[in-house]
């Protein structure tokens, strides 16, 4: 009898909760795990600086996952900001529009460097896109013909590289980092190695040429890491001669365990990335729902706080964590675009 009464009470209680669309009093953010640490620092400092506002909620879930949530619609039970380590795609803007999210504001926060690193016990490593392409591509050109990648050791690719088995831990396909890796390393290396010309002769479609250039070998020597950089670090710890792909900030936090490789002879640092000398970098973004500005308390202030020089300037906490600040003029432009309400 008692449990029957309890059940009824529970049902009534849950029915009472149902249908209450609750107004939200804090900003909700989701998206890229690369932007996550920066967004966390900003969210925390934001709440400390403005005690009237609650700390924004920052979810992880990847650039694509975040943008998907973002494009679910407008209203307090959808997120306000999507963090992304790549520009929003045309198809995602379409999906957003279909769900009623017609006004999206893009905010660039700065640049992120992608570094190659190996265990700290190894000798200095000098990489160029060509060597990485030859070591990691699915098919390479040998004697003018495309064949399945025959190289097993780095020294076979380039005799200056160490005499170690090829083992690379690269970001998985759902990572925003993967795209940069493909563009700036594999596609560039493909061209340098002269493979592009051979592929061009074989395939006429430009998209397919590109796809062939960036295809990564599937024989187990190049391992896709779908988790975070922590997993890549653990793989390097287990296989000392392995090469891993990290974000600059993650590397800087673990510089005692890792040895960073130069690319084209340039050591990655916030300076070389800001000046454009270091080739593998990408812009980081977040996207704001314009319809939520003025509705969700603190959203406008959060964006303004994020884009201020106190946060993304060259001497800011984000820069200290590893974000590469955009040049002064670009930062000014970012702030102006947001203040003017420029939509995509």
């Amino acid at each position, binding site marked *: 009898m008692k449990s029957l009464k309890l059940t009824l009470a529970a049902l009534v209680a849950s029915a009472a909760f149902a249908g209450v669309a609750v107004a939200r009093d804090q900003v909700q953010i989701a998206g890229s795990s690369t932007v996550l640490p920066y967004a966390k620092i900003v969210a925390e*400092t934001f709440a400390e600086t403005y005690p009237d506002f609650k700390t924004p909620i920052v979810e992880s879930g990847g650039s694509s996952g975040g943008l998907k949530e973002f494009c679910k619609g407008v209203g307090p039970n959808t997120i306000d900001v999507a963090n992304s380590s790549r520009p929003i795609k045309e198809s995602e803007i379409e999906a957003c529009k279909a769900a009623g999210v017609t006004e999206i504001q893009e905010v660039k926060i700065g640049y992120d460097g992608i570094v190659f690193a190996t265990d700290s016990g190894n000798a200095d490593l000098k990489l160029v896109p060509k060597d990485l392409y030859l070591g990691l591509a699915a098919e390479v050109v040998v004697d003018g013909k495309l064949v399945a990648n025959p190289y097993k050791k780095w020294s076979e690719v380039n005799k200056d590289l160490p005499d170690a088995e090829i083992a690379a831990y690269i970001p998985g396909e759902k990572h925003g980092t993967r795209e940069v890796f493909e563009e700036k390393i594999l596609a560039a290396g493909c061209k340098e190695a002269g493979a592009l010309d051979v592929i061009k002769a074989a395939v006429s479609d430009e998209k397919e040429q590109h796809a062939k250039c960036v295809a990564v070998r599937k024989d187990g020597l190049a391992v896709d890491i779908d988790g975070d950089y922590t997993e890549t670090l653990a793989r390097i710890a287990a296989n000392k001669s392995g090469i891993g792909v990290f974000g600059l900030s993650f590397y800087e936090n673990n510089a005692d365990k890792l040895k960073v490789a130069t690319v084209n002879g340039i050591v990655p640092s916030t300076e070389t990335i800001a000046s454009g000398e270091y080739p593998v970098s990408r812009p980081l973004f977040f996207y704001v729902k314009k319809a939520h500005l003025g509705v969700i308390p603190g959203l406008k202030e959060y964006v303004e706080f994020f884009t201020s020089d106190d946060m993304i300037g060259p001497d800011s906490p984000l820069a200290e964590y590893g974000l590469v600040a955009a040049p002064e003029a670009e930062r000014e432009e970012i702030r102006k675009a947001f203040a003017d309400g420029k939509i995509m």
Partner: protein
Amino acid sequence: MSQVSTSPALGIATKPERRDIGLRRRYAAERRFRLYGMAAIAFGLLFLFLLLFSVVSKGYTAFQQTMITIPIEFSEQIIDKNNERATNPQKLVTANYPVVARNALAKVLGVSEDDRAGLKAVNGMISDSVRVQLRNLVTADPSIIGTTQTVTVLAHGDLDSAFKGQIDLTVPETNRKVSDKQVGWMNQLAESGALSKHFNTGLFTNGASSRPEAAGVGVALIGSLYMMLIVLVLSLPIGVAASIYLEEFAPKNRFTDLIEVNINNLAAVPSIVYGLLGLAVFINFAGFPRSAALVGGLVLTLMTLPTIIIATRAALKAVPPSIRAAALGLGASRMQTVFHHVLPLAMPGILTGTIIGLAHALGETAPLLLIGMVAFVADVPATPMDPATALPVQIYMWANEAERAFVERTSGAIIVLLIFLILMNVGAILLRRRFERRW
């Protein structure tokens, strides 16, 4: 058993050749079987020990936190230069408290106020959370402005790691987060007693933070607690009512068989599926807020229900039919039979099943991912409607952090979660003992 063990003596004594009943072979088989069993247990224990060892050896340091106790001068020059605080209370909120703390530590270490690089290094030794700490002190009692107070502040996460020996200080200075200068100061402060390790209460009270030294499982603990309460309040009565009806009242036909098959199936459905369902029903349809402990609790309720129903039905089945027959024979109605006689006897089994279901729900992260609870939540949730996170989620989030100081916190949070689970299981055993009846 007893026959087998007595017969050899008799058999061997009388006619050993004629009665070959394979005793040796059978004894050997039994010994082998016992050995297999012991090996299996030893294997399990070995892994349990390895797990506990790796967690505890990495995590025990998380329960202590490096702090610096220094006299801090709440200089009017820095906090409120033009004495505006009476008219403009905002002044005390936005004042530059980190500089107050930095100057105090610089004074102790004898760093001059013109040495910019030195001051920056000093600043890197104190946690940024000092801003809120000092602000709270000042807003609670503005009269301390202009005085000097002895305050214990958190050391920076990197310094904490260095003090605990988690940073390899033999590598070149540029390759680590603490400089030789800072290590020197650290040793100097430690000798004078200003820098020491204290019990880490912040680990239990603070919410998530991007600064490892100020991060804690407070929000996650409260979030998990809310969710467990919701799961208990909803799934126990619903689950027990469903099983009593199915077991004691419902006719046995194809339809109830179908229901039984489905319940057993649901118990095996991957938990992420419940997360998808929760997102569609509770957030998109019912309009509940994202990241709220309420939604998490409802999703986990759905996930736990099949487990509780199966356990309850098994417990009800185990009550001997003679109890029911006796009650009915004495004129009790069917409902009286169930609630006065069957249910009390089945209670230990029901409670065990419920607590195992709850413990399972406590350890889930996958269904929480889609409803937005795998998130950075810094504010303590006042009600289940506020955003919260859960203990296993906090462990997962910390495991992905780049800073060294989060390594020990990840293991520390695992220890907290394990203690929670042990307490729940002890509770289950105690309840079972309390209600156990023999017949």
